[in-house]
């Protein structure tokens, strides 16, 4: 059986679920029935817009819940919220196919959820419960759900960019038209792996889209004070023969359009892209950080451009009925509650896990 046949067979047998499907199969899909709303029937369309809204909410509410759980001392390790950055995760995920690959960072809750990983799996992982996506072995910085194309969250800055190249190379080699999306922060653009991966992807014309979520800070230090150019990613695209692309990372539609174009090019064999999405995190860098280094008023300015808020306003102005939006909100809230209860009810992982799955044979033995 050659690779192409293998792939066909795998695709046929695929049990992948996607964020789209997850939404469509949801109990609330009745709300998403077509209505005669011409203003929303542009390139994006009403169906996708509702999916987007639902997804944005899902990311927001799950992370807010993660924060609550942290305050209740139920989140044991660290956690890095991306409250305020949801439009990037949602906009890209909606442009992806179920067999595409996502690579993200420790700030990866949203990206993992956006590909369809269950909320309870994410919350459970943060709480160190058995129902966590890696049953507590990885922790909040290593959310992974291969089943959903979420190929891992990487906690060492820059490391996943070369790995994303490899997944893209594999797709290219196998002759599929899968694409790979790789998310990272502004601070990541100054580490060596960024440079190696970008050049490598460009030279091999790999189907990978690199997405820099520029939230203005690397941990506590303003990115401008440690970077030689204003736009840490976009101003370097030319160094890899790539186009300079900046997108409003708080506008989910804008992100979706940019993502779709880049994915289409990558699928067509036209090589990688590097996209800089301007955004802002509402909370501190991690749970330990009160974010006091931010100039007064900066957060307030960005809150005015909260991606959920502006998306909801847009839907309203496009004529989506309040009641439908409210129903999606209520439904998402309910689902987050259910996921929370499920995670709370899940036991801690059994100690037997410690000595499992270092090797493919399921064990950890290093000797006979």
């Amino acid at each position, binding site marked *: 059986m050659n690779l192409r046949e293998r792939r066909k067979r795998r695709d046929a047998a695929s049990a992948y679920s996607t964020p789209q499907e997850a939404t469509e199969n949801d109990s609330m899909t009745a709300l998403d029935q077509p209505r005669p709303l011409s203003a929303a029937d542009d390139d994006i369309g009403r169906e996708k817009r509702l999916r987007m809204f639902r997804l944005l909410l899902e990311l927001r509410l799950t992370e807010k819940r993660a924060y609550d759980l942290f305050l209740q001392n139920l989140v044991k390790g*660290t956690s890095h919220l991306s409250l305020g950055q949801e439009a990037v995760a949602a906009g890209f995920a909606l442009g992806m196919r179920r067999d595409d690959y996502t690579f993200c960072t420790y700030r990866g809750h949203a990206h993992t959820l956006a590909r369809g990983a269950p909320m309870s799996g994410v919350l459970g992982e943060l709480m160190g419960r058995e129902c966590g996506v890696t049953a507590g072995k990885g922790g909040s910085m290593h959310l992974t759900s291969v089943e959903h194309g979420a190929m891992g969250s990487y906690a060492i800055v820059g490391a996943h960019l070369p790995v994303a190249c490899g997944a893209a190379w594999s797709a290219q080699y196998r002759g599929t038209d899968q694409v790979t999306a790789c998310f990272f922060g502004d601070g990541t653009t100054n580490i060596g792996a960024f440079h190696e991966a970008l050049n490598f992807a460009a030279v091999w014309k790999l189907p990978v889209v690199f997405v820099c979520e520029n939230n203005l800070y690397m941990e506590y230090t303003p990115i401008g004070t*440690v970077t030689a150019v204003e736009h840490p990613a976009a101003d370097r695209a030319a160094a890899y023969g790539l186009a300079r692309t900046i997108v409003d990372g708080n506008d989910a539609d804008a992100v979706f359009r940019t993502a779709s174009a880049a994915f289409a090019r990558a699928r067509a064999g036209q090589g990688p892209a590097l996209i800089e999405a301007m955004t802002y995190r509402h909370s501190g860098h991690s749970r330990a950080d009160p974010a006091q280094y931010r100039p007064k008023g900066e957060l307030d300015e960005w809150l005015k451009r909260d991606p959920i808020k502006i998306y909801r306003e847009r839907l309203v102005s496009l004529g989506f009925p309040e009641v439908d939006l409210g129903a999606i909100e209520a439904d998402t809230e309910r689902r987050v509650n259910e996921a929370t209860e499920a995670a709370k009810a899940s036991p801690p992982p059994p100690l037997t896990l*410690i000595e499992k799955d270092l090797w493919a044979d399921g064990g950890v033995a290093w000797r006979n």
Partner: protein
Amino acid sequence: MAELTYREAVAAGIAQEMARDERVVFLGEDIGAAGGVFKATVGLFERFGPRRVRDTPISEQAIIGAAMGAAMTGLRPIAEIMFSDFFGVCWDMIANEIAKTRYMTNGQISLPLVIRTANGAGSRFGAQHSQSVENWAMAIPGLKVVAPSTPADVKALIAAAVRDPDPVIVFEHKSLYAVKGEVPDGETVDTLGSAKVLHPGKDCTIAALALMVPRALEAAARLQSEHGISCEVIDLRSLVPLDTRTLLASVEKTARLYTVEENPRLCGWGAEIASIVAEEGFWNLDAPICRITTPHIPLPAADRLEDATIPSVDRIVETVRRTMD
């Protein structure tokens, strides 16, 4: 004597040396205005200013390389690598460049520099932010390696590291940052390469390091009170230079050796210690040498799993008791 936390003692050690010697400069990620992600460098930026306390980009190779270049041209830099796991991204600079340069240049180049880093488990950070990699450093000729277990030691060993004419890696333990202890007032400077017998004993020797030291001490107390076993606990403090004299003298007395180490099992510092004793202390030994280590696995993140993975007081007590029968 003042009571300081381990993290305060780190800052005090750096401050002491920066105040003494203008050549001492300090660089790293978020160490300045923010005071470090572990708050172990709070106050230094305010006191010594941005010329001497410098925030860097996320560029570990540049950080270590800059420290190296500065050290060879007259400065005495202290570089922070936020988590010791990140040695992976600058390992060439540490292991191939800094460690070898004096030797390769036949002594033309000196590298008086310090690399400080947060090492070890206990914070539920998962496998890439919890490693104990002191054995990585010990395995590289040309690096000095210390791993203090108390506030007093961390201050005075940092001072000794800064004054040492060679590259020194200081492993600070994350789970010790909040621990308090007496730190002598005024200038304190320790000696690299001296172990400390923290608890004298006669039935066996327990060699430990960093976070394993308080655990070994607690285990020794329990072994004494619950099982009548008298353990001599040695805090190695420094892996290179290694105080083999103190170690061999203790085993000569007790005839039994346990090592308690947090790094994964294979090729850990415990293996080195055990091998030295199996060669040089062999005729003094009354029993097999026993290494109590983290298993040879990456660290799991969940609190329950992490706690069960690295050596605990219970495991030390249990192992010693069982093997001393």
